[in-house]
């Protein structure tokens, strides 16, 4: 691993995206539009204040998962990855470069989503908006890291899109949006404790209601951080210089 090569890779990924303004607009605007739609649907009920924080976790997570997994898969398919791996680029440089580039986009995307939810849709946040943003960013980076890992196991674009329902939907169903996690059947409850998105949603709801102290939110952030690191490390291990 080498910081110059990692940063060069991150810079390269960002300039690729810069040549694609439509993707930038979609990345930044789509989560906010969906959150706005949800606020409108529930405009005469108190529902938005309970599910709103979870949505800030959800949409950037899904969008970043998809964008990252497809971009890295494209790199495998076009032969540029083979070229890079025959050059003095560390596998860690490659994965970390992608994580940094998409992590930066995740920060922007989450900032737009949080700002829009709070100041335009009137989501009531009792806790710190900054802490809310921190959790949202961690969550979008988690989507990026899992997307990188998923792309290692996909050979085609069709397969990678199937990873969405396979890896992401169970986390949404068990994350406490449809039914609070403490009301789930015991086995599912125990299983959901192991899913990173559950912790992201717990943390966002804790900040929104100010129902827990900062140490609790910090602990949840640590769990999400551990998942990010784990996915990045596993992603670079599964990257092979030699292929059949």
């Amino acid at each position, binding site marked *: 691993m080498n910081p*110059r*090569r990692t940063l*060069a*890779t991150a*810079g*390269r990924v960002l*300039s*690729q995206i810069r*040549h*694609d303004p439509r993707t930038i607009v979609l990345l930044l605007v789509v989560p906010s539009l969906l959150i706005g739609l949800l606020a409108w649907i529930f405009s005469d009920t108190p529902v938005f204040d309970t599910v709103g924080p979870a949505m800030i976790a959800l949409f950037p997570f899904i969008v970043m998962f998809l964008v990252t997994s497809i971009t890295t898969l494209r790199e495998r398919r*076009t*032969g*540029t990855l*083979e*070229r*890079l*791996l*025959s*050059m*003095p*680029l560390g596998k860690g440089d490659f994965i970390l470069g992608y994580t940094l580039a998409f992590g930066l986009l995740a920060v922007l995307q989450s900032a737009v989503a949080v700002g829009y939810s709070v100041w335009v849709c009137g989501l009531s946040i009792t806790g710190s908006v900054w802490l809310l943003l921190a959790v949202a960013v961690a969550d979008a980076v988690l989507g990026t890291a899992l997307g990188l890992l998923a792309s290692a196991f996909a050979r085609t674009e069709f397969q990678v899109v199937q990873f969405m329902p396979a890896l992401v939907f169970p986390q949404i169903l068990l994350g406490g949006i449809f039914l609070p996690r403490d009301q789930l059947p015991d086995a599912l409850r125990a299983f959901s404790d192991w899913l990173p998105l559950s912790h992201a949603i717990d943390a966002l709801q804790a900040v929104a209601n100010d129902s827990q102290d900062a140490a609790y939110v910090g602990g949840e952030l640590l769990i999400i951080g551990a998942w990010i690191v784990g996915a990045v490390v596993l992603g670079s291990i599964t990257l092979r*210089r*030699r*292929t*059949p």
Partner: protein
Amino acid sequence: MVHKAAPAVVVRDLHARRGKHPVLHGLSLSVPRGLVVGLIGPSGCGKTTLMRSIVGVQIVQSGEVTVLGRAAGTASLRGRVGYVTQDASVYDDLTVRQNLAYFAAVLGATRDDIDRVIEATDLAANAGQLAGSLSGGQRSRVSLAGALLGSPELLVLDEPTVGLDPVLRAELWALFHRLAATGTSLLVSSHVMDEASRCDRLLLMRHGEVLADDTPAGLLSSTGTHDVEAAFLALIAAHPSPDPAAREAGDL
């Protein structure tokens, strides 16, 4: 031309599969330093698998591949060997210069080096264009330019002249010989027989085997033919290849 004692590449008894299919069955060859060596043979004869083995991105079943005195794929070789894949491996959503700037950053090459390879591959007029908007021939030259960065000691070029017009092809072959004259070793594959005469040495391949390893003139005189295509046919007639299906069964 610079001749050194140790060859640039030595391959001994190499067995390799591409996907699930056995492609190389005990191949041995050597590529001398400072020459343009042509790897000539029909599509599917194992040229790409051999080249991937030399640059260290191919899983090999058995055998030895030594590149510049080290085992192929050794980390220290990655900056000393330039590789151009058959399909141009460049980023379509970056400009020519941005593509090369990224590869240069990975290799630790300088900004001057980027200008040098753009010049050498005749891309100065397209440097600011997105690679995706270029013609096939232009894109493959961007890919080639990337491999020239950092002046590697060995260049492994998989069909670098496909789809280029005759003038450009002649220019690239002249470039290859200029590089060889400065001591670079080149292994250039082609399935076009008339390119063979432009090489210093030829490796003729068929069904994963080397049929001949000679200079173009030596090949013509030993087969008593006037062009490489006829020589190739004469060699096939002299070495009838065993049934590939029987060979695969024996191999597994």
